[in-house]
Structure formats: C-alpha cells, structure tokens
C-alpha cells in the first residue's frame, strides 16, 4: 500500500505516559485511550475546525506551559508533550463553554427526536452547570424543510458547523451554508429541487443536536432507546453498506449506519438510508396469487401446491431439462444453494441461472471468476492505491458510498483518479483525467489502452493521454469497472481484456508493484450468486444430483423461447424489464406452459406468471451476503411482526407438493453445506460471523486458459440524424425498495431522456418537452438537458417500468431515431 507506516510519539495524559500516533490529533488519540474529552465540531470525517471550544485541554509542550488552554481537536502531539484533561481550569472552561452553547438552545428534549442520542444532552449531563442562568428571550426561527428527507430546526442549532463542513468537504454540493453573522447566524439549505439528494442523510448522524432530523422518523417512530437493532446489509448496491435496522413495536422505524470503517465508513446514500418503508408496504404480497380463468388469492400453501402440481406434471411429462429456473442477485448466498439443489434434485434441470449475469453465452462465470478472483483487492485497498482507474462505471450511481470515499480521497490528493466511461459522471470533478467514448465502446477502449501500453497493435488516439498517466501509476493501481461490463453482450471477454490491461499496466509502469481489478456488481449479492452458480468450476466439490448450469440468463431464456422449456420458475427477478432483449423474454414467457414467479412485490414479469408466490423482503430473511470486495457479511431478520417466507420455505413447499423430499432441513443446514462445497468460506454459521463480516478469498480457476485478444473492435457510432441509446443505471429507479417506499414519492427521479444541449438544439427540443425514441416511438420520455451527456447519445434510465429501455436496446449499442413529440405534458 502507498501509505507510510504510522509513527508513534510518547506523550503524557493526566500524568500517565502513553504512546499515540504522530499523525493524529490529540483528541482522537485520547478518546481511543478512554479519556473523556467532550467535543461537538470535531468529526472523524472532517478536517479540524475548532469552532465549539469544548475539547480544550491544558498543554505543556517543550517544557513550557502553553499560556492558554488548547483545542485538542487541532493539536498534533509532539514528543514529551504533557496534557491535562481533568484540570480544574479545563473543567471550568468546559462548563462555561457549554453554558454558551445552551444560551439559545431550547429546552425541548422531551419533544426532540434526537433526545437520547444527543451529544449536547450527554455532555450537558456530564460537564454542564446543572442549571441555566440565561433568563432572556432565546433566538427564535421557525422550522423549515431542508429537503424531502430532512427537517431543519433552526432553534436547536449550536453552530458547530459540522453539517456545513460536510456539505462542502465531503458531499461537495454545498447544500448547507451559514448565513449572516455572529449571534444572528443560521444555517440555510440550498436544496436544488430538480436534483435528487444523494448523500444528504449523513448530516442527521453528524448533527450533535436535533437541528437536522429525518422526516420519516419524526415523532411516530419512537425514541432511540426503544429501538431494537438488528445488523443488516443495505440492499441497493454491491458495496453492502453495514446498517442497523431499527424496529419498534414490531415495525421498522429507521435505518442507521453500522459504521464499518472497512466497508462504507458510515457514509450511507439516501436511497439506502431512507428506503425501508417498502418492507411493510400493504402492496407486498402476503398470500399467493393464482391466475387461471381469473385471478384468485389463495394461501401460500395452496399456491405452493398449485405450483408443485404444475411443475410435477411438466417434469413427469417432459422429463429432465424441461423447466428453467432464474433468480435475481438480491437473495442470500445460502438461498442460492437451496435454489441450485431445487433445480438439480427436484426439477431435474441444468437450465438455471443464479445472479445477474445478463449475457446470452455459455457458462461465462468461470472466466468472470478467474479474471476477478486473481486480482481483486479490498475497498480499503482501492482507497489506499496510488492510482485508481474507473472504467465503464458511474460510481455515484452504482456504488454511492465507494464513489463518495474515492471522491474524498481524490479531493484530498491521497490518490490519482482517472476515469473513462460512456458519459461524464459526478466523480469526474476531482479526477486528474476523464475520458468518454461512445456507449458500447468499452471493449474497444480497453484493448486500445492495452495496445498503447504494450506498444503492440492499433492504438486509437483518444487513449494516449490516459496511457501516459498509467505509465506513472505509482506504487499500486486499482481498476474499478462497473455497469458497462455487465451491459455488454459478452462480459467475460471484457473482463479478460481488463485482465490483459492489468498486466499491461504492471509491465508499462516500472514502479508499480500491484495492479488490482475490482468490478462493481449490479446487485447486493452478485458475488454470492456467482460463487454458488458455478462452484463446480472452483472446486472439485460436487453436489449429488446437481449439474453445472447450462449457461447464462440468455441461454435459459432462448431455450424457453425456442419451446425447449415447458415452464419457467423465476425468483425475484424482473427479467421482462431488466434483460436487454425484450423480444426474447416476451417469446419465452409466451412459449412456456407455465410461469411460476416468487417475489415480494408485483412487477412486469410477475404479471405474466400463472402462480405468484410470496417471498420476504431482505429484512425478513437472514443469511450471508457477499459484497464487491468478497467480504462475507451477515444479515439478520428485523424484529418486526410481519413474517414472510424465505426462499428455502418456498422451495421446500413446492418440493413437498411434488412429492419430493425437502432440499434442506433448515437454513443452518444449508450454511453447513455451503461451507462444505465452497472451501475457504470463513464461517458456516451466522453466530460465528462477526458484525463486521469476514474477508473471503475465492480460489479462482487458472488464468492461463484465458487468452485476451489484442484486436480492436469496430468503432461504435450512430448514423446522422440518430442518437446512440445509452441505458444507464441510476441510484433512483423503479426498484422495489424505491418504488414502494412513500418517502421517495417526492424525490425527482431521473426518468428522462437526457440529451446534450447541442443535440437538443439540433432537434429543437428544450427541458420538459417530450421526445419519441425509435422508429415507432417505442419510448416516449420528457427531455432533460445535461452537459454530462456525450454529444450524439441519449441517456435513459435502464429501470423504468413505464418506459422500459429494453423496448429499444436490443443488442447494445443501438442507434435510435429521435423525434420531438407535439403533445407536451402527456403521461
């Protein structure tokens, strides 16, 4: 790693000699050692500010007493320094300072949502006067809404400036600002109503008082001490943000960060933090839905019996390999094993696919694992690398907390950030170099870059500046790739090209000792799904009666479309909207005799199912989740009243209806089995797994089989008068977590056709006008002008139920005709 080893110096705190790191201010070192120094404005994410004066200590340095008390939050330790934290002078100063903080602070702790977890409350109790002497009128200013999530209470603010510094130094969007001066100072929000907030929720945690509180937690959700906490994992991205799921009286009350410094460091994105209302939304399926002549709601048991009857008949009539099974990447790892056993032993089929590999080729997972597994590093490793190259991903949308942490590191000059993807992204702002290429041109770009570094083959001119910088990559270099890899027709080929790039960087840059490749996956447990889907290729382990999968999602769907499969069983995956080739899915759903869907909420695919079985949300199911750094983390069931089945319950229910034995007795048995077939899995029980999770190194298959080509694929371009359709993943889209949580109703979601102003001017459209995409206007969307869009392309949200992008984006990349629609404001 590029970081220097930590040096220690010896200082004396309250007469006791201690060793503290030389690069850390005294406040944090002393607190780590157990000395209670109160503070408000200091925060481990922020640079020292010294506003609140609560952390004053008495200091003797260089054999001389410092004339005044010093703020320990900005005091660097020096050899032989002496510090007193309990001196009467210090205690007196603290007490007086606290009295100042409380001058204008209202005495409404019983009403305040922060009461019980409030720093001011705690410190007033520990260090305060006990009674206020201020008898005058306190400053009054009515509350305001900061943004759709947060309420701003001006009266309670003590002007520590944490949130303002967060908005400028961490978030970087300056959405909060001090206005006016002196005693009149207040915090004003500069919320852009057109933009969805992305990291604003963190100010709730940072605020040491109750000035910034969550609207969705306000009053009704109880007090902090009443919450029952369960460790869980944020479900929206593959970073796997560690969260506490708070429940009270049997209902989910809120989500707070669990603060795992190695994973998300407490920085949650707003979609993860506020996306919990869907867990108990009344639209969640609690009974089974059977569609015969008409739609009927039956009990779960009856639904499973019906599903078992249909599947039993098909397996009996058509023999092995007549049923296809698909599963999304939001399930837990042991549930994938249950599904694999179900496919092999009960359905007797190898037409199954678990996870989110969307390609249509034959079993590419071993190639994926080989390229990924041989050179991945941890999130810490990425952040400590000297150079980080992001390829084909917009981290702020795909893995927000990783994106934010990289953004901060780049801003503070701790690493060099280099970006290349099909359009500009938010993370470009502190990058040393940002390049864009037409959507679909990732493979061409990567091969061109490799050629430039190795000096062999054809080199497109646009990659040269990036190659120049990569030649001086420094001690280590991390490549982070993302969505464009998974959206390409052949992800393993792209990953192979990336592996070749990794070697090329290592050879071209003499100082570089290590080059890593870390993909950002599409879903929270993509890594777990990948692992279980093809573990036969990782190890010699075999499961009796289970064969390796025949291929990826496309392979299964094509077999169904060709009439080879008679039934499809789909677990929690909206294939109709998410798979690029909509025509294939349409055909597959039409050509099979029966579709069994299992998922918590209705969606486009489940509408076509003959039987829709209920499934719990992630808060209802416990298990292992593996994130993008291959850290095995645990997710427990929230302390809520509502119960919902796990995948194992459903699978066993169907097996029983088919007259077969259950695939596993219970989840612990599955976990034990999982640890047997996947060697190196750090644990086989949930109890043994610490809350922080454990790292796991999968043993990848040999790399030498993978020969990456140096051929340059053809350039992607749209013909004149057409634009390149770019489906892009956004944080706010039509996922269940967002669609069924009321809090997001007020958020402006990016359901637009994003156009470069130059292209919009050519088309004669402006903001808010509607355009039709495709020859037959397959997509009709309102326009939003955005400078970040590459000229010549139109960016659409890849998950929008009303206007799904896969109506057009067949084989990516697609050039589409664009036409302005006359009827403005149609819905």
């Amino acid at each position: 790693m590029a970081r220097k080893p930590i040096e220690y110096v010896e200082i004396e705190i309250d007469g006791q000699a201690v060793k503290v790191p030389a690069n850390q201010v005294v406040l944090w070192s002393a607190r780590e050692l157990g000395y209670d120094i109160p503070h408000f404005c200091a925060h481990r994410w922020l640079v020292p500010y010294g506003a609140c004066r609560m952390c004053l200590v008495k200091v003797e340095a260089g054999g001389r007493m410092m004339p005044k008390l010093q703020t320990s939050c900005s005091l660097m330790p020096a050899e032989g320094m002496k510090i007193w934290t309990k001196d009467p002078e210090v205690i007196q100063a603290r007490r007086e300072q606290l009295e100042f903080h409380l001058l204008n602070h209202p005495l409404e702790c019983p009403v305040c949502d922060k009461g019980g977890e409030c720093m001011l409350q705690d410190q007033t109790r520990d260090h305060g006067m006990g009674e206020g002497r201020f008898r005058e009128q306190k400053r009054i200013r009515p509350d305001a809404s900061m943004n759709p999530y947060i309420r701003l209470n001006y009266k309670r603010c003590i002007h520590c400036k944490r949130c303002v510094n967060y908005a400028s130094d961490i978030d970087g969007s300056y959405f909060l600002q001090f206005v006016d001066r002196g005693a009149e100072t207040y915090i004003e929000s500069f919320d852009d109503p057109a933009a969805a907030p992305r990291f604003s929720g963190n100010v709730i945690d940072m605020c040491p008082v109750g000035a910034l509180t969550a609207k969705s937690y306000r009053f009704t959700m109880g007090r902090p001490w009443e919450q029952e906490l369960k460790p869980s994992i944020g479900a929206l991205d593959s970073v796997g943000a560690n969260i506490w799921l708070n429940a009270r009286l049997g209902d989910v009350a809120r989500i707070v960060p669990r603060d795992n410094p190695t994973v998300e460091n407490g920085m949650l994105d707003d979609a993860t933090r506020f996306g919990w209302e869907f867990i108990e939304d009344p639209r969640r399926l609690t009974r089974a839905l059977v569609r015969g002549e008409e739609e009927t709601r039956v009990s779960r048991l009856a639904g499973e019996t019906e599903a078992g009857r249909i599947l039993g008949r098909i397996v009996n009539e058509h023999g092995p390999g007549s049923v296809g099974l698909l599963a999304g990447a939001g399930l837990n790892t042991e549930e994938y094993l249950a599904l694999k056993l179900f496919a092999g032993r009960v359905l007797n089929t190898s037409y199954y696919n678990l996870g989110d590999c969307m390609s249509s080729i034959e079993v590419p997972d071993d190639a994926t694992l080989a390229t990924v597994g041989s050179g991945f590093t941890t999130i810490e490793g990425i952040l400590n690398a000297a150079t980080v190259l992001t390829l084909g991903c917009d981290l702020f949308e795909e893995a927000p907390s990783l994106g934010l942490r990289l953004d901060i590191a780049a801003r503070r000059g701790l690493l060099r950030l280099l970006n290349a993807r099909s359009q500009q992204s938010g993370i470009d702002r502190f990058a040393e170099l940002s390049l864009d290429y037409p959507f679909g041109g990732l493979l061409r770009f990567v091969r061109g870059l490799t050629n430039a570094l190795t000096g062999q083959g054809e080199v497109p001119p646009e990659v040269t500046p990036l190659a120049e910088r990569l030649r001086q990559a420094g001690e280590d270099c991390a490549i982070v790739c993302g969505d464009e890899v998974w959206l390409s027709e052949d992800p393993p080929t792209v990953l192979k090209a990336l592996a070749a790039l990794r070697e090329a960087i290592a050879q071209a840059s003499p100082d570089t000792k290590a080059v890593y490749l870390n993909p950002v996956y599409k879903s929270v447990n993509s890594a777990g799904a990948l692992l279980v889907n093809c573990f036969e290729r990782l190890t010699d382990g075999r499961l009796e009666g289970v064969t390796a999968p025949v291929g990826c999602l496309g392979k299964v769907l094509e077999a169904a479309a060709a009439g080879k499969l008679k039934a499809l069983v789909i677990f929690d995956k909206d294939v109709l909207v998410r798979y690029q080739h909509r025509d294939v899915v349409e055909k597959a759903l039409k050509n099979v005799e029966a579709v069994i869907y299992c998922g918590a909420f209705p969606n486009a695919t489940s509408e076509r199912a003959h039987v829709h079985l209920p499934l719990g949300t992630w808060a209802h199911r416990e298990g292992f989740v593996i994130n993008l750094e291959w850290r095995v983390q645990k997710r427990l069931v929230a302390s809520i009243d509502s119960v919902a089945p796990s995948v194992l319950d459903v699978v066993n229910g169907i097996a029983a209806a088919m007259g077969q034995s259950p695939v596993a007795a219970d989840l612990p048995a599955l976990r034990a089995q999982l640890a047997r077939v996947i060697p190196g899995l750090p644990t086989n029980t949930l109890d043994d797994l610490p809350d922080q999770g454990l790292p796991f190194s999968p043993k990848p298959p040999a790399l030498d089989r993978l020969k990456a080509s140096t051929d340059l694929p053809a350039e992607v371009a749209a013909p004149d008068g057409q634009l390149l359709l770019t489906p892009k993943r956004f944080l706010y889209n039509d996922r269940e977590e967002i669609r069924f949580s009321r809090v997001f109703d007020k958020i402006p979601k990016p359901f637009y056709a994003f156009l470069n102003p130059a292209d919009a001017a050519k088309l004669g459209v402006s903001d808010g006008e509607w355009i039709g995409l495709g020859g037959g206007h397959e997509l009709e969307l309102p326009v939003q002008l955005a400078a970040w869009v590459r000229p010549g392309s139109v960016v659409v949200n890849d998950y929008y139920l009303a206007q799904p992008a896969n109506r057009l984006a067949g084989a990516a990349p697609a050039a589409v005709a664009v036409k302005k629609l006359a009827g403005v404001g149609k819905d």
Partner: protein
Amino acid sequence: MSRAKVGLFGSIKALADGLIITLKQFGGAFGGRNTATVQYPVKKLKMQERFRGLHRLERYTEGPFKGLEKCIGCALCAAACPAEVITVVAAENTEENRFSPGERYAVVYDMDMLRCIFCGMCTEACPTGAIVMKHDYELADDRRREPNKFMYHKEDLLDREFHW
C-alpha cells in the same frame, strides 16, 4: 394482679369492662368516634395526599393552553417504568388538529395495569406533569382476556373520573 385476690366482684367488673368496650365499638359502627374499621364498600376511606393509586392523564385547566392535554408524547414515562407498563406512540400536532401545546402529542398511550407496581416513577419522569397518580384503588375485574379491562388506553386515562 393475682387470681386469688380478684374475688367475685372483681370478676364481674372485669366482665363489665370488656362488655363496655364491645358496646362502645358496636356503637361506633353507627357513627361513633373511635372507629377502627369502615363499612367498605358502603363507606370508603379518604386516602393520604401522597397515595399512589390509578393513573390519570391531565389537561391544562387554566392559562393559554386551557383544555389541551399536558402529555407531549415524549415517552419518558415509558423509559422510566421498571415494569414496562407504558407504551407511547407520538404524532405531530397540526393547526387543525391540536391536542397539546407544541409540536408533539401522544396518539397512543396504553398502560397495562396488570404489570403496574404503582411505584410512581412515571409521574416523576414526566416533564409536564401530565401523568399523575390519583387515589383510585379499585382495579379488580374478572376479565383477563380481550377486551382486557386491565389495558387502559389513552381515552380511559384522560379525563377519567375518579370516585373519591
């Protein structure tokens, strides 16, 4: 006093003394002054001011908030309660629908009196003096199952009339 010295007269006197006490007490039942027992349930004792009986949620009876509930739904009573008797769910006052002064009020205030040990911690914790303990002690009932007579809801506790 030894038995040998009592004599007949002394014995009769002792008997009479005893009978007089009995007669006094007997008379006391009809309104005499030296009553040791009361004719419960016809008559009921007046409790000491500090007696901790059944709870009651108070309203403001004067001042600018007259008529509003004192309870602000802070749930400190629930936090203080050692027997986990109280459940509070708060909500926000609106201009049209105002229950208490300020922003917050209790929309649910349940007390499970089967658990209550009448320790009075809730009244001590209450920052507004909304929950007080009155002198009712007749809490017995023969129904334990739902609808549970011992589960006192907000409407039972608020404006509750008490008997003495």
